């Protein structure tokens, strides 16, 4: 594979995108506590998603046709890439269905959640995406050591997100009565929606962690190179996809609508 970018400019681009995403996330939070405009929030989320898809997930690579020899590694990588993206497309229907359920059942109300914690886990996941991007870029330039370091950071940030949601937020929500609301008509299906949305997302984070471990372990055995590292690319794209989902779930659960206790 040829590198159109040298390493430092590729890493620099990752930083820039990270800064944009951070600003947009802060903007989201600001809008949510001031204007409370759902349409602006949707626009911001879509912009964030587009940035992630283009600069972190490299969706444009789907259009690449790097080799005509059908037995070459890069031809197969192009094929694998298409397969992975189709899988993500399929998977996104699950999340879209959950979103539809949320809109149908909760409308313009939202569950009582800890805003600071929400912002914190969102930031952590965003940061993990940033390090994932650095890791992949390192590998694309043959820097296995840099890859290993970045992937460890990504892993622990992802793990932190999981703890933040499942161990902390779920307990806090239970204390707020969301579990009890399973059987409580006054709150409606609020608890169910909250737990199923975060749960389905957390399950994907969890599988992402497993994949991160797998590529980390394999990279230690030096089986990836600058030219041949489809495994790394696949895990990176998957990890960013998990972040992508959260870009929509975060405002849907924390930011839009009226608070109902």
């Amino acid at each position: 594979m040829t590198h159109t970018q040298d390493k430092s400019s590729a890493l620099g681009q990752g930083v820039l995108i990270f800064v944009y995403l951070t600003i947009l996330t802060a903007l989201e939070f600001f809008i949510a506590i001031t204007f409370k405009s759902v349409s602006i929030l949707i626009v911001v989320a879509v912009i964030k998603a587009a940035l992630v898809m283009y600069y972190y997930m490299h969706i444009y690579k789907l259009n690449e046709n790097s080799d005509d020899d059908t037995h070459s590694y890069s031809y197969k990588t192009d094929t694998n890439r298409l397969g992975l993206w189709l899988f993500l497309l399929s998977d996104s229907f699950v999340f879209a269905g959950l979103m539809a359920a949320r809109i149908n059942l909760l409308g313009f109300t939202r569950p009582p959640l800890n805003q600071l914690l929400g912002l914190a886990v969102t930031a952590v996941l965003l940061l993990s995406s940033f390090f994932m991007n650095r890791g992949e870029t390192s590998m694309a330039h043959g820097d296995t050591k840099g890859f290993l370091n970045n992937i460890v950071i990504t892993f622990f940030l992802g793990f932190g997100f999981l703890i933040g949601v499942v161990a902390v937020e779920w307990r806090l929500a239970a204390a707020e009565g969301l579990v009890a609301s399973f059987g409580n008509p006054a709150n409606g299906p609020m608890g169910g929606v909250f737990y199923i949305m975060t749960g389905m997302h957390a399950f994907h984070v969890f599988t992402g962690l497993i994949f991160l471990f797998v590529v980390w372990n394999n990279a230690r055995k030096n089986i990836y190179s600058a030219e041949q590292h489809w495994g790394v690319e696949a895990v990176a794209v998957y990890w960013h996809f998990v972040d992508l989902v959260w870009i929509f779930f975060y405002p849907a659960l924390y930011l839009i609508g009226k608070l109902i206790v």
Partner: protein
Amino acid sequence: MKKFFSTALARGLFWQLIGTLTGAGLVTGIRVLMGLSATDKFFFTEPAWVLGGFFGVLFFLAGNGSVSDWFKWARGIETPEHHEERYTGWEKYLNVSLDHKVIGIQYTVTALLLICVGGLFALIFRTELAQSQLQFLKVDMQLFGQNGPELYNTLMSLHGMIMIVSILLGVAGIMNYVVPLLLGAQDMAFPRLNAFSYWIAVPAAVLLLMSLVLGGFGTGWTGYPPLSARAPVGVQMFFLGVFTAGWSSILGALNVIVTVVRMRSKGMTAMRMPIFVWASVATSIIAMTATQLIGLSFQLVMFQRLFGMGFFDPAKGGNPVLFQHLFWFYSHPAVYVFVLPGLGVISELLPVFARKPLFGYRWVAMSSMGIALVGFLVWAHHMFTSGMNEYLRLPFMYSTLLVAIPTGVKFFSWVATIWKGKLTYPAAMLFVLGGIVSFLLGGLTGPPNATVSVDLHLHDTYFIVGHFHDTIFGGFVFPFFAALYYWFPKATGRRMNEFWGKVHFWLMTPSFFVLTLGMMRIGLLGMRRRIVDYDPALNFDSTHLVLTIAGYLIGLAVLIFIINFFHSISHGEKAEGNVWNSRSPEWQVPSPMPTHNYDQPFEVVGEPYDYGLAGSKYVEFAKPEKSKNK
């Protein structure tokens, strides 16, 4: 016998049993520690059965070896792209193979098996319906924790879902076998994923059948809450089984799309792809995406039952209509998953047997895509009486009627292709024609259902049952049989017996039309569907008796087919050449197909269906010496 127990199938089933016990035991242990009840009516408690069922699937896949290469990759170990086939004969089909042809046959035979199971269920409840009053499914009987009418409901529901799964497998079988051959590819894009997609369907079928003995469920194949939220634990096995089978469908479809995009042989531009390939892509787009939503809707009911999350429970502020939206978002497009490949088979075979070019190739290719896309926008036509927002009725009525246009395109093309053709009538062609007529009846009865004012009366009557049996037989069953008669020699080097093929056709077709038209008749007169008994005063007894007899005749015809099928594998008349005089590439090489498909790659040099045009050619094979260095 010893050989059988060492096959991947037997090992998988064994591990599924172990997995089920492990999962169920785990939950039971935890419950005991927490001081909750350990057992229930069906020995284990409901959470225990659910985790057990889930573990069973995982253990099956891990135990039968269909994921072992992936585990190796995860540990950084490389595996050869293709494994040498270790088995021959029947053992090849009961073990994990990566060859798309073997997998295609595995799918097909499993589908035939499930058709027999589902058909048997239908005959049982059809027998009960032959007369008004309860004959043998009586209230005072008990079987699997169900009384007679409850058993009726379970059999009726399982008939529906088992048939649907068998259709999905049959579709996957034909696509798997044929698509790579039509493309000139050596295999599917992801052979391991392909094997995985097949094998995951086996534990799914087991789960579906488990629901029968775990108290069953009376919801019909649609599993609507609130009824499904209250049904016995069997409904959980049903949900889990469908969810698992859904993954088979999703991953198989993904594989087909990637294969078509990436692995066409030289010169096969989009507008020179065989129609069946177009149809497979259209089908796969639906199956790959929409299937997630039936999985999700069923999961939500499972969670509602397990944890009390009241998604669909009005008493807790939930919304049962939401379930129907999620469910039909898949299940309407799903009907096109069933029929598009079949309609593709019709378009594929008609020119061969009419010796004429397919009329309007481009339009037919596009109509498959059109149906698939419009099919995503019509789901609420199943919900006109559900109590959904009334303003939704009109748009969904019109979008539904819109589907008739691309469907009409196909009919137009078929009729024009038949027009002045030199038709021959082997069994395969008979089934193609039978499919067209049956699908016509099904298609014509669709728009009345789509018209709100009419549907308010027709909904949930036997008219609907007649409608969809006509569409599904026309779009799947007849073409499926046609495809089997047609490609059987390709797979085995032998032909199926023509005489018995014709008996099969002439027995099944009239019986089938009697069955569906009879259903529509009593449906119009007010016979409700999904019900074990009816009022003798309605005077439906004689019609129901006729329907039952017709049902048995169809069963007999299918039995004849099955015997013919298995008998011909070893005893059929030899047919190793281009039996049908087809232009398609797979028939230009001897049968049965060699293991790695084509020895020489081919190039597409003309239009696929120019039958009867002098000097025209579809494919040209490379010269042997040129491709030596490949």
